[in-house]
């Protein structure tokens, strides 16, 4: 096979190490005769792949470029901001897609998914792809599983910039890998609904996460991380205790397995276990809300239970709980800040429900099998949760002489139970939007999990890619061996934590200094806004400005563009001001598209940004100051300083 472009393309491909590695592995097999490159009638290369003796033509043998244009024109409507290319082939479509999208565009706004690395190697061999490989608008998944490709797409996306997604499908690839691409589409639908939900959550509760994380920062820095537990329970069965109404069916059996299973409880089911005399080994907490902190009222002194907390958890839980604590992280928020100055915390997945984190913890601990109880994710017998959870307290507050707890709960179910699910046994169950998404997540993850996963809920709606068995039967089939789970946990939890308090203090002081610098800039910028907004030139367009006004306008733009150059502070600002950031981006886009936009219009929008930055400063500076004060009070004897270059 002639490879006129391979060397240059491979050099460009080094920008994408994950694809480069796949291609390197595939090059050895690139002599496979089932992939035939042939010139089309117009001289461009085309590809024919023999599959089970059948030739599949990948591109027109007459004019592949025209063919690609037509496909893209049919799919890519105006206003679409992001594109998912399903099947790359030799890449004709991508080039035309990039022509149609604005430059510079948005980072990773086009994601290319090619399931067959051999096809991609042919593309690298016969066409000059350096431009598309170097284009920051494009992200690649080659030879990845559908789940990996979907996750990469979701993880790389700037969800605030996503307005409308177009799928450009390469029909021969779709036909050849039909199930693969169906799975990708399912994954994308699922990630979209979830991540847009996350964005909305961020808009409304982002501050709460951030405030809690700063309040908990000094405590979390010194806590052992759940990373210490990873792979420490290989082959030990785990049972995850969720708080669905079916928990009451088999919760009493948990006492019989405590010496053989690792029992992980979510916050909502903790009180119910304790009330029945059952102590889980680990209880997880991550909810930032005060309401969820009520789950720990009355169980603060359970010193045989390890509390694993995410830094954003409501601070009342950390201060009130008297037992051993470990830190865990979802990888967002202050994770990057904290983990630079301590041993690795241990990152776990979270998809909105703490049960998802409990599942990931069991996986990372190498437990096998992983058994769920109380994972209804649906309403059962007119109830939301098992009796005794904090939701009962919340609903009870609404009860008055003309209603009842049951009535309030049923009303909630009737309002929220929008998803009707026909079960294999012919019964019908109802679930709400959130639980519906969690169900999809679990079923999606189950199929990606190496360990055996069993749903012993004895109810609920989670049935795909999981073995459903009564818990009694699970105990008989996987009796397990006696394991000193409590002892192992205590040992892992009490070992000293490597942390660098002086380093963190120094960094926080630098951030405080940067915020003060920004405040000075803001004062200067506000004065410039006043001048430009009040001048006779306010009605002109920016291009018409001359002399000092032009220089002042340029300075204003510079401050706007560079005020938040610190990635760390910008991330916090974007969390605090999410709604403004989204609106501001749209407004700037509108102004740029309007050649007649006046200086007054521009200055007005820029001034709004400065006001937003000021609100952020008013919020952030006290958080940093408090954290610095508390860290300065940390007793030196409790600090094990990390040395420079310590791998952690």
């Amino acid at each position, binding site marked *: 096979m002639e490879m006129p472009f391979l060397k240059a393309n491979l050099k460009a491909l080094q920008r994408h190490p994950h694809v480069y590695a796949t291609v390197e592995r595939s090059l050895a097999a690139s002599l496979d005769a089932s992939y035939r490159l042939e010139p089309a*009638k117009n001289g461009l290369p085309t590809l024919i792949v023999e599959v089970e003796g*059948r*030739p*599949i*033509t*990948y*591109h*027109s*043998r*007459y004019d592949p470029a025209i*063919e690609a244009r*037509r*496909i893209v024109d*049919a*799919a890519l409507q105006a206003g679409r901001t992001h594109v998912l290319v399903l099947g790359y082939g030799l890449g004709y479509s991508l080039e035309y897609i990039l022509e149609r999208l604005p430059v510079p565009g948005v980072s990773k706004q086009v994601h290319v998914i090619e399931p067959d690395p051999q096809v991609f190697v042919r593309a690298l061999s016969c066409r000059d792809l350096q431009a598309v490989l170097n284009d920051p608008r494009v992200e690649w998944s080659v030879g990845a599983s559908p789940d990996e490709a979907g996750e990469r797409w979701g993880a790389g996306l700037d969800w605030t910039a996503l307005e409308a997604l177009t799928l450009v*499908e390469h*029909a*021969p690839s*779709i*036909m050849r890998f039909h199930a693969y691409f169906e799975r990708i589409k399912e994954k994308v639908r699922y990630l979209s609904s979830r991540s847009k939900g996350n964005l909305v959550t961020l808009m409304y509760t982002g501050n709460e996460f951030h405030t809690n994380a700063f309040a908990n920062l000094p405590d979390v820095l010194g806590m052992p991380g759940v990373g210490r537990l990873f792979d420490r329970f290989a082959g030990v069965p785990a049972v995850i205790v969720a708080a669905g109404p079916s928990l009451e069916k088999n919760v009493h059996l948990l006492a019989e397995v405590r010496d053989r299973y690792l029992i992980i409880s979510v916050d909502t089911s903790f009180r119910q276990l304790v009330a029945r005399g059952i102590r889980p080994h680990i209880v997880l907490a991550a909810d930032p809300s005060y309401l969820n902190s009520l789950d720990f009222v009355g169980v603060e002194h359970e010193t045989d239970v390890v509390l694993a907390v995410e830094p954003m958890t409501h601070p009342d839980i950390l201060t009130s709980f008297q037992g051993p604590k470990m830190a865990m992280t979802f990888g967002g928020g202050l994770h990057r800040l904290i983990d630079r100055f301590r041993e690795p915390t241990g990152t776990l997945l979270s998809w909105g429900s703490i049960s998802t984190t409990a599942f990931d913890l069991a996986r990372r601990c190498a437990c096998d099998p992983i058994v769920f109880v109380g994972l209804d994710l649906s309403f059962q017998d007119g109830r939301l949760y098992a009796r005794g959870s904090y939701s009962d307290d919340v609903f009870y507050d609404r009860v008055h002489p003309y209603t009842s707890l049951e009535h309030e709960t049923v009303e909630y179910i009737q309002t929220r139970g929008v998803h009707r699910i026909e079960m294999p046994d012919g019964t019908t169950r109802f679930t709400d939007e959130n639980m519906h998404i969690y169900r999809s997540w679990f079923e999606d993850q189950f199929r990606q999990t190496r360990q055996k996963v069993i749903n012993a809920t004895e109810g609920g709606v989670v049935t795909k890619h999981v073995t459903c068995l009564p818990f009694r039967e699970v105990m008989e089939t996987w009796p397990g061996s006696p394991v000193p789970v409590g002892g192992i946990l205590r040992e892992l939890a009490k070992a000293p934590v490597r942390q660098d308090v002086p380093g963190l203090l120094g960094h926080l002081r630098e951030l405080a200094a940067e915020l003060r610098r920004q405040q000075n800039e803001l004062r200067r910028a506000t004065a410039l806004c006043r001048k430009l907004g009040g001048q006779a030139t306010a009605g002109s367009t920016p291009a018409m400005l001359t002399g000092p006004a032009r220089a002042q306008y340029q300075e204003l733009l510079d401050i706007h563009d560079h005020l938040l150059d610190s990635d760390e502070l910008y991330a916090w600002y974007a969390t605090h001001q999410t709604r403004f950031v989204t609106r501001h981006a749209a407004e700037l886009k509108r102004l740029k598209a309007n050649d007649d936009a006046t200086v007054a219009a521009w200055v007005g929008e820029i001034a709004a940004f400065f006001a937003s930055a000021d609100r952020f400063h008013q919020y952030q500076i006290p958080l940093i100051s408090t954290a610095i004060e508390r860290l300065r009070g940390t007793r030196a004897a409790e600090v094990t300083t990390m040395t420079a270059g310590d791998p952690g």
Partner: protein
Amino acid sequence: MNILLNGQALSIEGVTPEVTLAELVDTVTEELKESGATIMEIAADDIRISIEQTDELETRRLVEFETIDILTATARDLLEMALGESEEIFGFIDESARNVAADLRNGKVKEAMERHLETLDGLEWLSSILKHLVVGFAAEMSETSIEPRRKQLFDRLAAQMAELQKAQEHTDWVGLADVLEYEIPEITAEGRTLFADLRELVPDAGEPENDDRG
């Protein structure tokens, strides 16, 4: 009851008033076998029934009518009619092939396959006409270059129809789309030229018919 053949009285033995029009058609078809003529339509009193309306033919009996005229056409008649309709059919083939190709390239295989059957009908019509021209217009074509062109076009069409079939069997949709988008229009273009030249040779062919059969 009068039974006519193209307006001329026809005498058929063994036909009673109780037989159906379908049975009459079968009997007459048998008798016409050697003549090369084909029954096209039955004019029963004031009702016109096409030979393709088999249900109607099978339910109606001779006794219901006073006069039944059996209208026939020869192979040449049919070819002349076909030449007259060819512009419309070529247009249909081109458009249908283009749409099927576009659907296939966009992965809409189900929609494409539904339409593709109509395209194939059109191509089979063309193949049939090209095949029978040599019989219907043998005299006119013998002294011209039309016959070698006809044969060449017939062979090319046969080859491309085989390609279509092969691509369809292999579910090679891009290969199928290529033939429909690039090869078929060339064939229909050549067909148009050929038929235009033929109409010049056979002045009656393709002229609007003074068809009193409706």
